[in-house]
């Protein structure tokens, strides 16, 4: 291989009017090998967190698509037959479950296995009650606005999409419960709890936007 040389003189000779050479001091910096930012690659926990938040952002777009479909097809129109009491009740139910999920995570953080188990179980239970509520809601909705017409379409698809997320959250929390029972979080690594709880809160946030979209807006 031929020699690999840097001829500074020629470099300067070739400078064009249109472009600047690298400033002298920057060259010096390079030579001294400075400008090292001592950021170490992140720990696996913060990597996991960043990943989970990106995932949540991605999921937001899925819900956004279906929420947009509601406004695109129907504008602000909504049928009078919506069961408002049930809608409000379901919303409050999810909020309670967010509180218990929060308390479950606190339990895990403080090594309080009983608190973790109690609150996880309550959250799972509330999730299941929520799903039953949606099931009851669907049986009513089938009569008033079946999925074969516009409002039924957005109603069933949005609540169905959300219920699917609730169901997956319940499964995750059940895993947490199973592992907590076996003492897996006592050693200090509680990412499993944190991730499942964050996901559960996200499902709640999604409902915060779905509820007015389907029941309230007009």
């Amino acid at each position: 291989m031929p020699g690999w040389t840097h001829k500074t003189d020629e470099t300067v000779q070739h400078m064009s009017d249109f472009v600047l050479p690298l400033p002298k001091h920057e060259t010096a910096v390079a030579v001294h090998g400075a400008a090292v930012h001592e950021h170490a690659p992140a720990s696996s926990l913060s990597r996991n967190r960043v990943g989970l938040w990106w995932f949540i952002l991605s999921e937001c777009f899925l819900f956004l698509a279906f929420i947009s479909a509601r406004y695109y097809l129907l504008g602000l129109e909504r049928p009078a037959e919506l069961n408002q009491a049930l809608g409000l009740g379901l919303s409050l139910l999810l909020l309670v479950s967010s509180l218990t999920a929060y308390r479950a995570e606190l339990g895990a953080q403080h090594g309080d296995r009983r608190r973790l188990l109690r609150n996880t179980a309550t959250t799972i239970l509330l999730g299941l009650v929520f799903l039953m509520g949606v099931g009851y809601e669907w049986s009513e909705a089938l009569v008033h606005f079946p999925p074969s017409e516009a409002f039924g379409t957005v109603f069933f698809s949005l609540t169905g999409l959300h219920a699917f997320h609730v169901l997956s959250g319940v499964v995750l929390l059940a895993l947490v419960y199973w592992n907590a029972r076996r003492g897996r979080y006592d050693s200090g690594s509680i990412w499993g709890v944190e991730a499942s709880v964050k996901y559960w809160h996200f499902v709640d946030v999604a409902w915060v936007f779905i509820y007015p979209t389907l029941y309230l807006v007009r």
Partner: protein
Amino acid sequence: MPLVQAFVFAAIGGVFGVGVTVAGRVLTGREAWSLEPVVTVGYIFALLGWLLGIGVWDQWAREWLGLPVEHRQHRGWARYFAFTTDHKVVGVQYLVTFVALFLLAGLLAMLIRIELMAPGMTFMGLGTYNQVMSLHGIVMVAVAVATIIGGLGNYTVPLLIGAEDVAFPRLNALSYWLVPPVAILLIGTFFTGGLDTGWTAYPPLSDVNAAGQVLFNLAVITFGLSSILGGLNFLVTIATLRAPGMGWGRLPIFVWSIFAASLISLTATQFLAAGLMMILFDRLLGMAFFRASAGGDPLLYQHVFWFYSHPAVYIMILPGFGLALEVLSHFSRKPLFGYRLVPGGFIAIVVLSFVVWAHHLFTSGMSDALHGPFMVTTELISIPTGLVFLSALGTLWLGRLWLTTPMLFGLAFVFNFLIGGLTGIYLADVPTDIHLQDTHFVVAHFHYTIVGGEIFALFAGIYYWFPKMTGRMFSERWGKVHFWWMFLAYHTTFIPMFWAGIHGMNRRVGDYPAELGDVNLFISVAAFVMGGSFVVFTANVVWSWVRGPRAVANPWRAHTLEWQVASPPPIENFPATPVVVGSPYAYGVPGAVHAVLTTAPAHTPAASGGAQAEPAGPALAADSA
């Protein structure tokens, strides 16, 4: 062995899903067998079985259940057929799979051109033509989305940023192993009534056509999931795993382009999934998203679809930009010109790409009020794109152009994409778009951006990193033959398509007026010649991979990190964490260093003064190569 297990698990899952559906239908008093629901539910469970069988159960699910995990390491050829977490293996898996799919879809393009050689139905029936054309479209779109990011991105990004692997290696393997079911489903469309809606799948046609549509939708949703997870992995990898000293101002431009493209695939892809799910809901559950008679609206789909599919072209082309600039800098032996501007341009493109989708709907009958705003936003994209051209031309200026095969492809990228970009203005401009929309002018335009742009950049990247990936050199002579053959035949094929489109040749037709026969014959012959160039490519790559001369660590004497380790790199990439001290492109700066590859910290950061300097220089190994 894992493959066999995967197929067995998939079969079990499929049978279970079919059984559940049939049982459910019987219990609710419906006819036991209905193809579409049975296929859908069966597929979902088969997919779960497939993933569990290929390695998710062994290496992932057991951990969640608190069971002991056995970390089986496959060695040799077996690792390419297993759930392998090494990003280099995943990169090669992606690359080989998608280059094979590219060649396959290229054969479909040859079939299309045989049919179009003469007016009238000469070779295949209208139905077959629609299937071939649709399959060519969707496979090529998948190739365009995944080959650079999934293949070259996976292989090189951790190396380029000085990391040991991606942030989530198992997720990475999962992203890849979601792809084979997609291919199987797409082939399956041929046996379930075919697919005749093109890759865009516009309803109401896709609401009412044969059951092949359901398989298509499931396939593309699966592929979208793979794309989302892949994008997520890159975002976290680039954000959190950069080597010490690798600030955002020192990232190689290809890494920046992958980051920008991943932002889009993470978010916008959900809209594609949503649109296709709406079609499935219409078909399977009798919903009314797109049935106008029941209060739905076919245009809803076009909005949702293009909200993904326009940004998607930037998923395709941004890595192309990054690759071309990367190659131009290394082979001009000059720093990347305007390095600070280009990432800004990328991010501007990402932001703008979310507000331009409706330019695909100028003739769709949407509200007139939307025409002006979307024309404005669309044409504004030419400003950040212009920065890429400034950077490319400035990098060449006064350089020492080393015209190797990758460099030739990089240079061709600039020329081809210039044509692609300029013809895009005709389509962004409402008055001209009214005539040109849905004609061969559009076909030529997007083949100029995607084939002329992205695929040329892909070849630049494949040749550039071939020695790194395989440890062997390719034949430079045959590489050049491939380049000139492909380059000339490519322009001969696609330039006349602009003419045909202007002169009344609409899109996606198997038949056309006799007056357009001559130009189509010409295009077809040129296309066959272009197809021949890939034989040269394939032969060169296969032969060189097996028999080529051994490659040294840094045959191009480039400064970036991947060239400072052996070819191919060891499994842990770097013997010790590299410390980055300067720009990756400081060619011509005496004594400049990009990174130091020792265990000890290179220099005290005290002298830095916080300057995140543009320049810096060749890594130590560059001189000794």
